[in-house]
């Protein structure tokens, strides 16, 4: 991995193992050693460079997202959730790793595959699930749905349904922080599909021109709906496109929460130092279809299974916890139980919360002007 502006020592910030590249077509994993790619087998569990408590927290956070999403899938099947519902299963390490690098005041904004981001930044699973079921207790009082939720309190700015529209919006949030003179950073998430939209590059240009404190997080899950990256672009990587605008960046193993955290810390430090934006292309994988109605015929069952078996981010941390004797099987069972309870409670709440009152049709269209 080379930074674009030279001089970056490979070892200076990443405490994680050598960056891993997943070839989206063959799903072979390579370890980049001195510029040479060497085929790696299942990634070995490394000794974590974070505290036991932190590691356990990441495990919990990732597990919460997975169980939450599984439950959402279930509720969708029962007809309690309607419309579009895009699950985050498989990508949990991305948001959990980056949230570990964030501080109070930092902002985040993403696309419509947003449940994981909301849970990771501390939004209440009850409010998220109730929004999925379109109930009054949801974050948007049932008026936003799966793709449109927000939390001013947690600095979560949505939840946007138009592919890549959140990218200039995220840069605008960063603009507001720079204008106000604080050191907050905005995490602007988008996928490999969005990465081909023109407004991304309009935004790159202005973000670098104005040194905006924004981390562009490309969640490369290899598929833009049903179109693999290989069928969408001939350019070898997305983060390198930043070079055309003078933006530094790097590729990150998105199935390794510690690697994501380390990269996030580096990116955030770059932004807080006033050096402008930074791009993280995080290689990840979505286990489920694009949305609930996607039969996923564009990839083989074996491909998905192989990722699950060999690269699952949650299993990876679980291995670390057990191998390092930071937790026992019983400890982790207790965690599983705790998470299950939170998710069940959210599901119950989302069923019991009433539908919004009919008056709500006509509210929140305009904010009232101060007199």
């Amino acid at each position, binding site marked *: 991995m080379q930074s674009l502006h030279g001089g970056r020592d490979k070892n200076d910030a990443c405490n994680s193992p050598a960056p891993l590249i997943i070839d989206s077509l063959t799903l072979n994993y390579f370890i980049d050693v001195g510029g040479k790619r060497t085929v790696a087998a299942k990634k070995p569990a490394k000794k974590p460079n974070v505290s036991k408590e932190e590691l356990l927290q990441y495990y919990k956070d990732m597990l919460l997202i997975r169980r939450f999403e599984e439950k959402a899938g279930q509720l969708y099947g029962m007809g309690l959730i309607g419309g579009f519902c895009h699950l985050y299963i498989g990508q949990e390490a991305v948001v959990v790793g980056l949230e570990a690098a964030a501080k109070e005041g930092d902002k985040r904004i993403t696309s419509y595959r947003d449940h994981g981001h909301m849970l990771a930044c501390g939004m209440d699973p009850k409010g998220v699930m109730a929004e999925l079921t379109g109930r009054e207790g949801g974050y948007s009082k049932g008026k936003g749905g799966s793709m449109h939720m*927000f939390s001013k309190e947690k600095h979560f700015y949505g939840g946007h349904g138009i592919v890549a529209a959140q990218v200039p*919006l995220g*840069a605008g949030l960063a603009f*507001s922080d720079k*204008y106000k003179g604080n050191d907050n950073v905005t995490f602007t998430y988008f996928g490999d599909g969005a990465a081909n939209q023109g407004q991304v590059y*309009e935004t790159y240009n202005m973000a670098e021109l104005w040194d905006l404190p924004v981390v562009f997080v490309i969640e490369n899950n290899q598929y833009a709906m049903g179109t693999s990256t290989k069928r969408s672009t001939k350019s070898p990587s997305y983060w390198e496109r930043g070079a055309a605008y003078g933006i530094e960046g790097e590729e990150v193993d998105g199935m390794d929460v510690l690697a994501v955290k380390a990269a996030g810390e580096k990116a955030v430090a770059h932004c807080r130092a006033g050096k402008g934006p930074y791009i993280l292309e995080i290689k990840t994988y979505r286990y489920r279809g694009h949305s609930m109605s996607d039969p996923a015929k564009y990839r083989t069952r074996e491909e998905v299974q192989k990722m699950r078996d060999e690269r699952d981010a949650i299993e990876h941390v679980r291995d670390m916890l057990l191998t390092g004797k930071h937790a026992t099987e019983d400890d982790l069972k207790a965690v599983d139980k705790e998470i299950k309870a939170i998710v069940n409670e959210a599901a119950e709440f989302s069923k019991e919360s009433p539908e919004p009152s009919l008056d709500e049709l006509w509210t*929140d269209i305009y904010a009232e002007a101060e007199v």
Partner: protein
Amino acid sequence: MATEILMPALSPTMEEGTLAKWLVKEGDTVNSGDILAEIETDKATMEFEAVDEGTVGKILIAEGTEGVAVNTPIAVLVEEGESADDIAEAKLADAEAAVDEPAAAAPAAPIEVVTPKEMDIPEGTEMKSTTVREALRDAMAEEMRRSEDVFLMGEEVAEYQGAYKISQGLLDEFGDKRVIDTPITEHGFAGIGVGAAFGGLRPIVEFMTFNFAMQAIDQIINSAAKTLYMSGGQMGAPIVFRGPNGAAARVGAQHSQDYAAWYSQIPGLYVVQPYSAADAKGLLKTAIRDPNPVIFLENEILYGQSFEVPQLDDYTIPFGKARIWREGSDVTIVSFGIGMKYALEAADELAKEGISAEVIDLRTLRPMDLPTVIESVKKTNRCVTVEEGFPVCSIGSYISSRLMTEAFDYLDAPVINCTGKDVPMPYAANLEKLALTTTKEVMDAVKAVTYR
């Protein structure tokens, strides 16, 4: 053979200008490409180059002369051996006449202001003749002084002082942190503006024209207008999108569209289209303070026109209040923006023929002050709407439908919509004229509904 040098047209809408300075004098030899003079338009001071070679035989228009109409001879170029006087004297009379002429027909001539009763301007308020351009600038400057969170971004708004000089002087006063030149990237900077509004700032985003805002319309509608609703009231976008809208003059199909009806369809947006300078100022100040996204539609032809503006410390006009420009009893003419020019001219002409027209300027299109329109139609029983936009699903067609629903029993004639024609804007001068609505069309429509 002597050549006349004519006053040049230096912008699509220029009809006259000031001959600010001669850079040559009589007797000078000039070559093609030499700078002859500086000419001031309402937008900028431009250098004027010689096209032909020769000697400056006679300067016909002295420097400092204002209101010189385009195509007025301003000097005579002679070839070797020719006498300047022979030619010049013959031309001189023509030239002088030409200078006087436009003063009467000048677009910048103040229009008589009928101050409506409901416009709460205190008795004795000092009024000042101000162009729409200055009024818009003053509104932004006042609001930027009032709140640090207000900033202006757009193409050429800072160092160039605005493509149409609306932001003249703002960079000097507020600096480059708050008056920001963007690259030519409408989709991107509109999105950044909306994001900054989500982040608590009060952006004013200038589009060089609303035609270019089509590149950004997703951010305007999907991001700015809908977020308050989608977030259950948690966050919205206090932002103003402003710039010239509609036809200018001879700029063709892609630079001439009127978007009033498009934006007026969108819940979550406010849409404003002022006619007078006073309304431009008062409504823009309101727009900047409002916590919602506002589409503020201006008009290039109106920029240079002067109106009386009240000299008040803080002159704001609420949204959703139409203005009755003149009262009348035979017909209600409803318009907005530059359509008001045709509406008022038609009303003047019709008065000579004994038809009394009430003229309503909607000023805000969303929310629209329908009660004022309906009340007026209940009195006059007839209505004509005037706009420059396309006829299908126009503002006028919406007003017609509402009148049918809410004032059906009061109508003595069908409502007629005077609109732009259902064609892309042609370039040819005669066709362009035909494509826009005209004072005559408004008069014909009024006569039709009053059965005269």
